[in-house]
């Protein structure tokens, strides 16, 4: 980019732009590449979801005549959306924003940062390659053994093995990324940036990194044990060889429940940046918000078995109680956000609209989560489309709306140009309607008894209308992505020039150029609160 002047040494070994991007250790370029990589897998995962929805639009097997292919589709959809889209997308936003927000020149370990990035496309390519090597994994993203073990009618073939290897790679990338974030946040903060002056985004990335650091290695251990069972005659999860099928579920959910917070906390961080800026008020209850985040992180480790209420082998009241309790810090955050809007002066730019979309949709995802915390109610709802609705209200209504809020918010910082507001609003409206049309009916389907992961259903079961609605909604979501892509391409060339601080931001990323030069800052404003740029702006105007 046009910042060579600041970095005379770089000019002497300039090797062309592609080479520069492929070998860069600059956290900003790495962050952008994280985002692009994740977005590509979002598109692939989205197409897979459309395949699933097309099949389910009406009773009968019309579109995919082979049920095995159907199982591959939803398995790969969830795997890609979770491990190759939401988690790395948020890690990418964090990668770009965290060093800027704490006034650091880069991440603590720039080369390890590049390693974390490049492991992702590698893992993704391995996963996608299983489409061409005899079929992908088809045992669901949870891949419960014995179904995921080797054998006829279970999971023969290399697809499941490639799935394991790919997830171990992606997991390792996450762990290295988490170490990098933690060291960066603990050691690289600018003078004056005390822990309780850090932006909420940084706090959420901090808690997320602790979750990743403690939980991801545990799923890695489950995955290698599954690999050993499949390939070397191991018996960890083989109930007929002396192993235990439920053991895998315990280890898997010990990771995968905290993983839900890995996917939602940074999105909450984004929202907590956007809401104050566009309501011209500080976040209501900054410290309470931090304690709530830490509380969610801590509780997140002790609720894993609420995914296993129907297995008949977990201590139900304990996990039920803790799962209910996790609603409290989440509720605190919800009130903090709403009271940030309250009595503010709201400017309805696209980032704020997506943030409000997050608030109203994540609210539903939080409330219907309480249904599943109630064990007897969960007996009725578990493994039905109700759960599919719940997870999408959290991970789509929450994380994805948060991600788009973040992309619209920080795009001007990343590329120096504004995204088009009109297209952004079209994107939001289409996505909001499509999202609710797709996922709200799934509540009804689940209540009426439609199990997840079935390729077909009886035409007289009463599920036809809701399924058709969900399919139409799914295509509406797909359509909503088109104006976004168009917007990005047009705005990269012709967008309005953003300037350093187009939104009147609060945090340090708005104190440098857009895009920021290598090593980020020429000088930093004085940091006396969690809103240093706000302080500087209003010190000048004498406020």
């Amino acid at each position, binding site marked *: 980019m046009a910042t060579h002047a600041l970095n005379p*040494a770089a000019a002497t070994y300039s090797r062309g732009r592609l080479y520069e991007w492929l070998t860069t250790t600059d956290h900003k370029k790495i962050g952008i590449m994280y985002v692009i990589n994740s977005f590509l897998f979002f598109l692939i995962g989205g197409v897979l979801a459309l395949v699933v929805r097309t099949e389910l639009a009406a009773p009968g097997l019309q579109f995919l005549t082979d049920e095995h292919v159907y199982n591959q589709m939803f398995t790969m959809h969830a795997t890609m959306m979770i491990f190759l889209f939401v988690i790395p997308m948020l890690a990418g936003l964090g990668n770009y924003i965290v060093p800027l927000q704490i006034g650091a020149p880069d991440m*603590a*370990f720039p080369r390890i940062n590049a390693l974390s990035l490049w492991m992702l496309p590698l893992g993704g390519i391995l996963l996608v390659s299983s489409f061409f090597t005899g079929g992908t994994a088809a045992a669901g993203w949870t891949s419960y053994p014995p179904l995921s073990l080797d054998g006829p009618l279970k999971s023969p073939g290399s697809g499941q093995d490639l799935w394991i290897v790919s997830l171990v790679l992606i997991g390792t990338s996450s762990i290295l990324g988490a*170490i990098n974030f933690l060291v960066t946040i*603990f050691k690289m903060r600018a003078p004056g940036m005390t822990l309780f002056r850090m932006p909420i985004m940084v706090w959420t990335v901090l808690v997320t990194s602790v979750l990743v650091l403690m939980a991801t290695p545990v799923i890695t251990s489950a995955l290698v044990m599954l690999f050993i069972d499949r390939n070397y005659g*191991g018996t960890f999860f083989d109930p007929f060889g*002396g192993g235990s099928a439920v053991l895998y579920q315990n*280890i898997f959910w010990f990771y995968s429940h905290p993983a839900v917070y890995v996917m939602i906390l940074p999105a909450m961080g984004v929202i907590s940046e956007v809401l104050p800026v566009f309501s011209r008020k500080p976040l209501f209850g900054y410290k309470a918000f931090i304690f709530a985040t830490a509380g969610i992180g801590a509780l997140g480790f002790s609720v894993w078995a609420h995914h296993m209420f129907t297995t008949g082998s977990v201590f139900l009241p304990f996990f039920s109680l803790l799962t209910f309790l996790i609603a409290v810090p989440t509720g605190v955050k919800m009130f903090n956000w709403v009271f940030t809007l309250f009595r503010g002066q709201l400017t309805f730019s696209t980032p704020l609209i997506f943030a409000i979309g997050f608030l109203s949709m994540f609210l539903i995802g939080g409330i219907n989560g309480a249904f599943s915390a109630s064990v007897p109610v969960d007996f009725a709802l578990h493994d039905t489309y109700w759960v599919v609705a719940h997870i999408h209200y959290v991970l789509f209504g929450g994380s994805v709306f948060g991600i788009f809020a973040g992309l619209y918010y920080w795009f001007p910082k990343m590329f120096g140009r504004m995204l088009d507001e009109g297209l952004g609003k079209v994107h939001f409206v289409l996505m909001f309607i499509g999202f609710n049309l797709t996922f709200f009916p799934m509540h009804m389907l689940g209540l009426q008894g439609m199990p997840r992961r079935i390729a077909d259903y009886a035409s007289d079961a009463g599920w036809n209308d809701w399924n058709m609605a969900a399919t139409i909604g799914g295509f509406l979501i797909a359509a909503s992505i088109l104006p976004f892509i168009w917007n990005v391409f047009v705005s990269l060339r012709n967008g309005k020039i953003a300037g350093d601080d187009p939104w009147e931001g609060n945090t340090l990323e708005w104190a440098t150029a857009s895009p920021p030069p290598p090593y980020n800052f020429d000088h930093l404003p004085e940091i006396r609160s969690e809103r240093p740029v706000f302080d500087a702006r209003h010190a000048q105007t004498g406020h």
Partner: protein
Amino acid sequence: MTADSHALAPVEHTPIAGLAHDARGGISNPILGMLLFITSEVMFFAGLFAAYFSTRANFVDANGVKEWPPSQFAEILNPFSLILVATVILVLSSVTLQMAIWAIRKDDRRGFLRNMAVTFILGIVFLLLQAYDYSLLFEDGLTIGSGPFGTTYFTLTGFHGAHVFGGVIMLGVVLYRGMTGQFSSRHHDAVEAASLYWHFVDVVWILLFTILYFL
């Protein structure tokens, strides 16, 4: 590697607060990074140990007998054998490594290199002994596919062995860099980080040895 990237951080064109803050003291970036990495490794082994204890608690052999280790393998898992020698060697290597650390902290490069070399060799000897021990177990018919005991035994010791292997490579790199004179009392983060990792691997082995052979 981690120390390297830190050392190469382009100080000349970063008139920035971040690094200055870093230099204010406290734990250094590479060492904090290594401690966090070890935390994640602890969780990895925790997963494996959890699986081991679960398998062991559920184990019933073909005759319905609840005995661990299964009687046919009880004999070959004698703790007072080659494996004890390997254990002593690994513990010794931690001692020599610590002596190397103390040496480099006092700028005693000869002592540092000597102790590093001994540690490196002890690490290799441990790996060779473990490989030999595996070959004996294979002869006796204990493999990763021979039931829950074989699966857990080889998975736990195998992953530990892989970590020792990684540690030996780390020690080799440190030794090589030491021989080219890259470390001093003021600059030896890589040595400290590698030693933390090596001690961790040692502790895991002592746990493994106790659990597999004595419990």
